[in-house]
């Protein structure tokens, strides 16, 4: 079942086209990663999905309802963590968490206490004294303390320390285990790699790649370090082989993942002594689109 989707979504600010026809589809129960550099349009797309901005063209839907017209109905089942959390300076973290969870109605006090403890948050401090990481924690606690069907998290871990990032990952995995859907926009590719089932990469308002991590990997190159008994003289002429580097410990090169099989076959003909085969990291994947 599709939980959230956009169809040819275009958003213009005056003459500037921030989103140039975006297609997304989130399936129920999946953690969907949304990655791209600053200014690519991640937050704009999320704000259109939340009905904060109105689509110039195309549609955006959540739970099969129109993101703009039925925003209130939709939001009753959504929890949102903005990328840049602004909080009322004269309220305490505890007050704001209570406000948000009460406005969302469905939430539990035990969950609240548990999360505050996990995130190690001092709720009695006024928000003006909170650091960026602590403001982020307030937003995260109030989001995860609410019972939502869709969690929209816009760069939720910026400013969090590694320990808290770990707590965050647990939270995402918990809601996923409950069958909830998560839209996670992030810069931290390691986090996306660990959490997300599927990923979309956005660049300058356009989606340039969508798929599972495995599918994406297929489109890119695998790094190989190999030692063989006989020298690999014709390696450079093999289809799909790039960036050859020969050193004392062996030959290093990268190969188009879809041609991996025939390359290994070629290597086998030369008597493999040692072989190390590294699938591309998301970072390499990502960088490939921006070189």
């Amino acid at each position, binding site marked *: 079942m599709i939980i959230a989707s956009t169809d040819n979504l275009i958003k213009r600010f005056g003459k500037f086209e921030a989103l140039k026809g975006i297609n997304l589809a989130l399936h129920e129960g999946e953690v969907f990663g949304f990655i791209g550099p600053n200014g690519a349009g991640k937050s704009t797309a999320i704000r259109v999905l939340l009905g*904060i901005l109105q689509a110039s063209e195309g549609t955006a839907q959540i739970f099969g309802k129109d993101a703009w017209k039925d925003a*209130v109905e939709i939001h009753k089942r959504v929890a949102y963590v903005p990328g*840049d959390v602004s909080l009322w300076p*004269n309220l305490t973290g505890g007050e704001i968490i209570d406000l948000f969870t009460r406005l969302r109605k469905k939430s539990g006090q035990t969950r609240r206490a548990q999360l505050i403890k996990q995130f190690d948050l001092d709720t009695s401090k006024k928000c003006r004294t909170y650091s960026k990481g602590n403001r982020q924690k307030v937003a995260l606690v109030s989001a995860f303390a609410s019972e939502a069907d869709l969690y929209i998290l816009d760069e939720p871990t910026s400013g969090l320390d590694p320990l808290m990032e770990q707590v965050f990952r647990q939270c995402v995995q918990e809601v996923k285990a409950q069958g909830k859907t998560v839209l996670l926009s992030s810069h931290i590719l390691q986090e996306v790699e660990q959490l997300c089932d599927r990923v979309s990469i956005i660049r300058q308002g356009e989606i340039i790649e969508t798929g599972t991590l495995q599918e994406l990997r297929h489109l890119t190159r695998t790094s190989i370090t190999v030692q063989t008994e006989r020298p690999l003289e014709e390696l450079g002429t093999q289809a799909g082989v790039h960036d050859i580097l020969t050193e004392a410990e062996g030959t290093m090169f990268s190969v188009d993942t879809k041609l991996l099989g025939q390359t290994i076959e070629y290597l086998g003909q030369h008597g493999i002594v040692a072989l190390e085969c590294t699938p591309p990291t998301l970072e390499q994947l990502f960088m490939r689109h921006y070189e």
Partner: protein
Amino acid sequence: MRGLYSGTLSLVRFILRRDRVRLSAWVLGIASFTVLCVPLLADMFGTQEELQGMAVLMQNPALTAMVGPVYGLDNFTVGAMYTNSMLVLMAMLTGVMNIFFVTRHTRHDEELGRLEMIKSLPVGCLSNLAATMFVAVKSNILLALLIGFGIAAFGVESMGLSGSLLFGTAMGAAGLVFAAATAVFCQLCSNNRTASGLSLAFLLGAYVLRAVGDVRAETLSLISPLGLVSRAQVYVENYLWPVWILLGAFAVFAVLAFILARARDLGQGVIPARPGAHHGGRTLSSPLGLALRLCRSTLLAWVAVVVIFGVMYGSVINEVDTFIEGSEMLQAMFTAGGGDSQSFTDQFVSLLMMIMAVVAAIPVVSLMLRIWGEEKQGYTEQIYSTGISRIRLFGVYLGTAFAASVVLQFLSILSFWATASITSDTTPSFGVYLQAAMNYLPAMWALLGLTAALVGIAPSKTAISYGYLGFSFFAVYVGTLADLPDWVLGLSPFYHIPRLPEEEQAWAPLAVLTGLSALLMALGFISYRRRDLRSG
């Protein structure tokens, strides 16, 4: 020691660059208004007799409480009259300019974390405060010169260059006292709202102190910056000593601010912030609860303001009665004009009520604008993402502002009537006063409607609301002194309100204004629902 101030001049240039539009607008705005009122007032009186008649009227305690004492009665001049009607008010406005300027560049920047970036550069620990005060001094000097030469340029007989320069200098010196006092408050409090609030309260306190002082006890006026400016007796005696006292007070406050700034940490106030509640109170569970919580201190402060104004103006009614009884000339004037002394008092009561209504309209506009402030700060999108509709959110702020208009008008008139009836025997019944005050509600709603429509249609232009409110105030204020054309006065909604008890009740203008404001509010609702929210 020099290290404390290094980089100050670069910061001065930086402040001037950042504020080139805003500060120029303030300085030029105040200066041109002050100067342009000269021909308006100067052309009103032909003969010395007319002037002397005016002089008697201006001694009226209600006017004295409002604008200060009259000097030079023996040989009254246009200059003396001008000073009486303009100086205190203009000094107040200069004070407001300085308060906003200083908070913007000290505590506000500090709260937003901008100052932290500045302080990480090779600049001294006190450089930012020093640069801010330096620019404040420069702006006030510029203002004084513009006004001095500007007024003198009209060549009105009684308003020479030295007197005009003193007029400007008195304004600037009072402005500097408020700038330095604000700098002190900015060191004491750890947040901008409290610091600005205390500074504005200090300004208001200075006004009330001199109002009481000017009517009853001279000494009180001498310790108020706004009382001191009158004591310069501009265009009469042209005394310099009040200016010296003001500059001395400026120096004392400024030194205090620097000492406190040196002693505290960045981001902290001298008065430490207390820890708050771990849990939200029961009210904090709806948009209305949140709005009331956020506006609580502002609302309470304004309740205090309108009650103080009510008590202050209410207490001079008795003085007005005594004043008329004691003046044979006035008695004769009323008999000749077919009126009685009661109608004279009524006229002042009507004027005071109008002024109180304009003052009470400020929080009404600002409560509505709060929804835009919240949106700009990026708070609204989080509220909105919890399943609150835009209509409801807009309704909460519009409703709060609407309720505030009624409550504030009621409290202001209650305190006015209560004080007046205790001190004077001739006060009309509460019903008459209440109706008079409630008559102003449609005018306040028109302003509220305009603000609501702007929030919906063009939120970045919401400053228009305050501009229009400011215009309305000056139309009321100048309109009572000079003959402005009716169409200019008619632009202000307050002009169309029947002024009880002086005039007869008229329902038509009230109905038209109410209808108009309802229309504007509906426009606000519709367009707010349709537009993109601004985020972050």
